[in-house]
């Protein structure tokens, strides 16, 4: 016989663990205007992912939940999938506070799986909303001019041309300020980056395998530029 009280507290504990771990990879992205977006520490070395629309204009500044502030620059962006890669600068000791997130393989997602969003809706810091993956949908996007991004992930995006990309729909509540924040699975691994590129009341996220491809592609270019 199942002890429901025990099950319920074990459940709550695992939830807390997942959220606590995920919070350590969450940052606030300021752009000098009203509101702020969220960001996820993606790679060691101060590499963060956020939404393109969060950093499209203004002077970028990143802060951790503990209040550390970092100057940041945009390394690469892909407007068509609303992604931007940032790198923050700072003493090594400070950067070590930014723990890279666990990244899940979003090609294996199933509708009905638990999904959590972390972000700063309406400016409130590190808010957790819970739900499930409601659906996987294909949306048409236009490749951004000069974004230089060609995805090699099944979602072929050529700059300036129309393409399609798979997005994750979730019933976890998303609001302005969740933009650029992570959508997490039951293990606390990132399955997507929340965004507002599709209208309506539906929350959507760009799957993590597309984000990973964007990051790899962007860092490859970055390295190439440095060597030349």
């Amino acid at each position, binding site marked *: 016989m199942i002890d429901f009280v025990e099950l319920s507290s074990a459940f709550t504990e695992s*939830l807390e663990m997942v959220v606590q771990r995920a919070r350590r990879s969450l940052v606030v992205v300021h752009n000098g205007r009203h509101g702020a977006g969220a960001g996820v520490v993606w790679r060691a070395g101060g590499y963060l992912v956020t939404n393109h629309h969060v950093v499209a204009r203004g002077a970028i500044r990143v802060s951790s939940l503990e209040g550390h502030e970092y100057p940041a620059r945009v390394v690469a962006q892909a407007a068509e999938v609303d992604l931007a890669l940032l790198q923050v600068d700072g003493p090594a000791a400070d950067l070590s506070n930014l723990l890279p997130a666990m990244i899940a393989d979003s090609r294996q997602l*199933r*509708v009905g799986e638990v999904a959590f969003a972390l972000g700063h809706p309406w400016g409130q810091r590190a808010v957790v909303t819970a*739900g*499930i993956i409601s659906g996987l*949908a294909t949306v048409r996007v236009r490749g951004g001019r000069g974004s230089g991004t060609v995805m090699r992930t099944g979602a072929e995006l050529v700059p300036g041309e129309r393409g399609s990309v798979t997005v994750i729909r979730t019933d976890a509540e998303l609001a302005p300020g969740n933009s650029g924040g992570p959508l997490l699975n*039951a293990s*606390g691994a990132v399955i997507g980056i929340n965004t507002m590129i599709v209208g309506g009341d539906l929350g959507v996220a760009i799957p993590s395998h597309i984000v990973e491809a964007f990051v790899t592609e962007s860092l490859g270019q970055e390295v190439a530029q440095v060597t030349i």
Partner: protein
Amino acid sequence: MSQSNGNHPLTALSEAMAEAVEKAGMGTVLVNGRRRLPASGIAYAADLILTADHVVEREEDIPILLPDGSEVTATLVGRDPGSDLALLRLKGGPAFLAEPAPQEARIGQLVLALGRPTSEGIQASLGVISAKGGPVRTGRGGLLERYLRTDAIPYPGFSGGPLVDTAGRVVGLNTSGLARGASLAIPADLAWQIAGTLAQHGSVRRGYLGVRSQPVTIPTAQQKALGREQSTGLLLVSVEEGSPAEAGGLMVGDILVGLAGQPVSDPDELLARLSGAIVGSPAPVEVLRGGQPATVTVTIGERK
């Protein structure tokens, strides 16, 4: 691509819900029976789809998309606008049938609302059973005996789809057509029962008496004469000429207190008792006449 351990209850629940969606999704079809966005339907029997009445705007050649991606057409078998249910017959059936939950939904239990409004696969939202209610007048001349309310998001096109438990069993049929704005579900046992009637008769028969009434309080002395505690009844304020009520001998001034052996204390109860097998057959109507109980027999007519 790392995974953390030590959070088994959460991953177990996540797995269970994905399984439930996959299973129930096999019994959820796309119903393209209206001009705007397609809606959903439940695989009720080998060649029958149960869906919401308000999403079916035609009777023939209704395109149905099965979970395996094959397209078939369906024809209308029957509909009941009063409970917002319609039954369709397929040419070529679904391979998998929806399974109704063995027991009634409980307030607080986890449920998943499912729909298949596009060809891109199943969609779902998570919530709980928020409330149970009924009977409720549906504003389409009908009355729904019982309904479920949930906080699971009713995405566009979810009408006609199932509300399922975490084992993927159907606890209700989603509809937005009964109460404007609110997401209601028709309990599975009731939906299945109405579907059975639709399969047999093509419609749900609703009874007709031919009276106008208003609820009145029954004085204690008359409750004693009645032999039970029943604080309200229906005062008949008019009896239509040539109606079943007149033929059976009901009179203005009678207080209707029971029908076919069941107490009737308000208009909704009367409406609920007047549907189904009672239509067309003689039924005892219990009244208070001059303060004394009396029973007359009325052959219940059918409301057209």
